[in-house]
């Protein structure tokens, strides 16, 4: 067996990424004591353009270190041999602010692996060495280096990725693309506009790139850790972005099916649609593999905790739809992981490396639950067996509101939970509902849909939509007829129907800085989903009325004082607070359930009452004036602007994906902008 050595191109990687120079600059930043400010979360504070170069320098350094690690640099000796100070690298990757940056905000997790390797994580290092002497290791790394260059050379693809990431690019948002692929007329306009065609080319490039990546990963089965490292390098785009990408692909396929059917009808010929579109089926399978657990399996089994924070920030939900404890020994049926991944793991290692169940509040898994529950497009769910808690998070692809697709997922969730959980099935004591949209729990009703229905004076449509909402809300009020406690976790704004959904839950835990409000009165509407019914029972009719009519937003503290919020948590600590609440409440669970049932009996809110509320809401809605509708439109537009891509002039379209990452960091604190917009509109409404 030959001595494992880094890939011969490692010195050029050091040179290409200017590792030494960048290292010096980052160490200078650390020494300046300004690092905390410079690397602050873009989600909490705005990032100024003058600060971007320092962050880009760090991005490029971390990218270089990650590529070096993939290329077999995994020890202090390797680094020293390349002329890079191992102490300096450790100083950077161990720095608490840098750690927070790459674990939580930096879309790539490579530095986590390098840190573990340099710190001598024995299990990881032993497996790395086994892989590095495998005959295919060098060629796999070479193929990765070529693919990485291809990724960076695909300029239009970077635009498409920004679009997937929720940003506005060249005046286009993802929802525009969705509309365009469903309409001949719009697609015609797109293809006549150079800028928009570029976005379509970028989409095409990403599909093709995905195919190439899939081929590379599929052929790297004999080096499962390397395969995981390579997947992780591009993995961010197969997390939240990947979900959206699948959605784009399926919409194109659906549109084409319609078109083919139309044409066939016109030509009066029978066309086998599936035969015409084998490439969409191929693409679907590829995307499923890339967004599934197959490729990063070995890596995530090795580092469930270390990668957990990154997975959440990158919206990677890979581990939720599997029942695997370690290296796939209890892998689910149909899982494509090859058995040879296990070949080099001894039975002893097998025994000692069990998945640390419960070590992370949301990433734990269990058996016996249907895959579908854990793969809903807009509702992320994960079950924590030891605390008998189901954690659910809304993860809308676009605006965080109650769109019909979100309602579909709520409906599916509410239908599946009673079927699979309960005293005679998988135990469930707690259900947590939170949001993956940074800074927002939910903006409530879908204003886009509402205004369209109102403009069409479609009262029946409004009632149908409102009824679906209150049915979901009412099921939550009944805790889905299960002996469980429901908990709302608020880490941002909860407005309108979003606030009302929270009111249907037993307990609300809110991070300080979260806000609550019912803005409907601003444009002459009333809350549609039970705010009147629930608030008047909780607070009394006078206070409830004041809250509904005031147009004000309320802080988490004010809501806590009013008794609506049950517990406050510091910013960023909401998850931990919810986990602690569950732990603390486990022993008195039966009492809590009984208390909540008694309360519901004492102050019942019937579905009938909620439906009447919806009917009143629809009546008010169809009478809205054009001016009110304009206000509603502005509010909807303000919501949409939350996802606007703030173009960074310092980053060119040809930049490397690493350089593009400041997309996140250049995103202004949009939630604050939205609050500002809301306050402005409220003032405008009051002045009328």
């Amino acid at each position, binding site marked *: 067996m030959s*001595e494992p*050595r880094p*890939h*011969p*191109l490692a010195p*050029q*990687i050091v040179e*290409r990424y200017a590792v030494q120079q960048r290292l010096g600059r980052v160490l200078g930043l650390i020494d300046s004591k300004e690092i905390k400010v410079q690397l602050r979360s873009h989600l909490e504070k705005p990032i100024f353009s003058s600060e971007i170069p320092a962050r880009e320098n760090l991005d490029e350094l971390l990218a270089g270190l990650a590529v070096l690690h993939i290329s077999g640099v995994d020890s202090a000796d390797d680094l020293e041999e390349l002329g890079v100070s191992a102490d300096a690298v450790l100083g950077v990757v161990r720095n608490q602010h840098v750690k927070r940056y790459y674990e939580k905000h930096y879309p790539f997790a490579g530095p986590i692996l390098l840190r573990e390797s340099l710190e001598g994580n024995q299990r990881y290092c032993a497996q790395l060495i086994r892989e590095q002497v495998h005959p*295919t290791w*060098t*060629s*796999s*790394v*070479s*193929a990765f*280096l*070529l693919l*990485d*260059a*291809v*990724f*960076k*050379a*695909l*300029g*239009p693809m970077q635009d498409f990725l920004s679009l997937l990431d929720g940003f506005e690019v060249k005046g286009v948002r993802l929802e525009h693309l969705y509309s365009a*692929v469903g309409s*001949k007329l719009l*697609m*015609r306009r*797109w*293809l006549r506009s150079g800028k928009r*065609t570029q976005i*379509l*080319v970028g*989409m*095409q*490039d990403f*599909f*093709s790139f995905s*195919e*190439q990546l899939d*081929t*590379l990963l599929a*052929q*790297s089965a004999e080096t499962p850790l390397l395969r995981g490292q390579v997947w992780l390098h591009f993995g961010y785009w197969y997390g939240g972005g990947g979900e959206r990408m699948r959605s784009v*692909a399926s919409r*194109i396929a659906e*549109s*084409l099916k319609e*078109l083919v059917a139309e044409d066939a009808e016109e030509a009066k010929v029978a066309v086998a649609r599936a035969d015409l*579109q*084998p*490439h*969409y089926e*191929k*693409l679907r399978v*590829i995307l499923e593999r890339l967004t599934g657990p197959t490729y990063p399996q070995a890596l995530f089994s090795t580092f469930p905790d270390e990668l957990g924070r990154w997975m959440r920030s990158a919206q990677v939900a890979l581990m939720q739809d599997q029942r695997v404890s370690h290296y796939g020994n209890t892998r689910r049926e149909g899982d494509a992981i090859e058995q040879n991944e296990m070949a080099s793991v001894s039975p002893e290692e097998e025994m000692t490396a069990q998945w640390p169940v419960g070590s992370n509040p949301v990433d734990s898994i269990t058996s016996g639950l249907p895959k579908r529950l854990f793969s809903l497009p807009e509702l992320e769910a994960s079950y924590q067996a030891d605390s008998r808690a189901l954690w659910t998070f809304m993860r809308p692809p676009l605006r965080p509101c109650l769109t019909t697709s979100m309602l579909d997922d709520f409906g599916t969730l509410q239908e599946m939970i009673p079927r699979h959980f309960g005293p005679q099935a998988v135990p469930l004591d707690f259900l947590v509902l939170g949001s993956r949209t940074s800074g927002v729990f939910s903006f409530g009703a879908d204003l886009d849909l509402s205004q369209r229905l109102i403009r069409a004076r479609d009262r029946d449509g409004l009632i149908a939509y409102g009824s679906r909402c209150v049915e979901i809300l009412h099921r939550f009020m009944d805790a889905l007829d299960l002996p469980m406690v429901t908990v709302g976790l608020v880490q941002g704004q909860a407005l309108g129907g979003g606030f009302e959904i929270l009111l249907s839950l037993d307990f609300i835990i809110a991070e300080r800085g979260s806000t609550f409000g019912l803005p409907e009165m601003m444009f002459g509407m009333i809350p549609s989903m039970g705010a009147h019914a629930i608030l008047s029972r909780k607070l009394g009719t006078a206070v409830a009325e004041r809250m509904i009519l005031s147009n004000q937003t309320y802080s988490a503290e004010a809501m806590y004082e009013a008794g609506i919020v049950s517990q406050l948590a510091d910013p960023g600590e909401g998850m931990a607070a919810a986990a602690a609440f569950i732990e603390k409440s486990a022993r008195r669970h039966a009492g809590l359930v009984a208390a909540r049932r008694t309360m519901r009996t004492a102050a019942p809110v019937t579905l009938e009452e909620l439906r009447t509320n919806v009917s009143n809401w629809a009546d008010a809605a169809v009478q809205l004036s054009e001016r009110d509708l304009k206000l509603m439109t502005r509010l909807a537009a303000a919501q949409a602007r939350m996802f606007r891509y703030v173009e960074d002039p310092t980053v060119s379209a*040809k930049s*490397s994906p690493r350089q593009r990452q400041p997309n996140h960091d250049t995103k202004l604190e949009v939630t604050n902008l939205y609050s500002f917009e809301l306050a402005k509109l409220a003032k405008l409404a009051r002045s009328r």
Partner: protein
Amino acid sequence: MIDRWNIIARRRAGGRLLHRLPYPLAWGNGSVAIFAEQPANRLVIFIHGFGGKAVKTWSGMHELLEHPKASGSDVLFYGYGSLSAPARNSATLFRELVDAAATNAPPWRHALRKAGALGGTRDYSDILIVAHSLGAVVTRRALLDAITAQHPWVDKVRLLLFGPAHMGTRLPELKAQLRSSISAIIADLFTIAQIRAPILDDLNEGSRFLADLLSESEQQIAGGRGRALVAERVIFGERDYVVRTDPFASDPLSMVWANEDHTSVCRVPQTPSEVARLL
């Protein structure tokens, strides 16, 4: 693919590196250059066809980079909008790239510097363009324009063509091929929009674009200025149903590889050997 994919790193310890780390180029879309460690003034450019991709089309080409005859060659995989742009526009952009490389223009020197490939001389005396399908059409158009513009590097160019589409394509077969390729989903969007992709008009048998290409080529060859337009070798797959396989202008008689189709000719084991024979 992986087993054979040893572009640069064949020898893991102490071996001589033949080529540098792949470098993403700013020309075209998805273009990548792999510069030689010891340049021998030779540039090999791969250009894909309709619906192809810069690197993916030539996925077996790593073996060429290991070939002793390729050790001093800079290798460039060029990508362009084969589905969304008219062939003439693609040709102009391609010509700009070849011009920059052949004249060692500042953007090219910048790329060399960024790729760490400034060592040695890079005054290319031999430029081999390996083109597939539409890539052959784009290349010939670019060369014709370069002759008209009197670019001095034209005479250094040689052509190796796989499944060239210069005599036109059979559209139903071309569309059928596209329907099986993820790389051609954008073609479906043209279908949704009921817009005929301009490239389809260009590639249609007997199109004005192809007729001009042929007549101008013949004119230049007859006038003694079109040496570069005559391919050194033309290869078709036996089962190439997509393009017309008639000879173009003064091209030599084509070779036919048994059991291959329109795209497989670019990535079978003998493809790199065929390229190496011309180095």
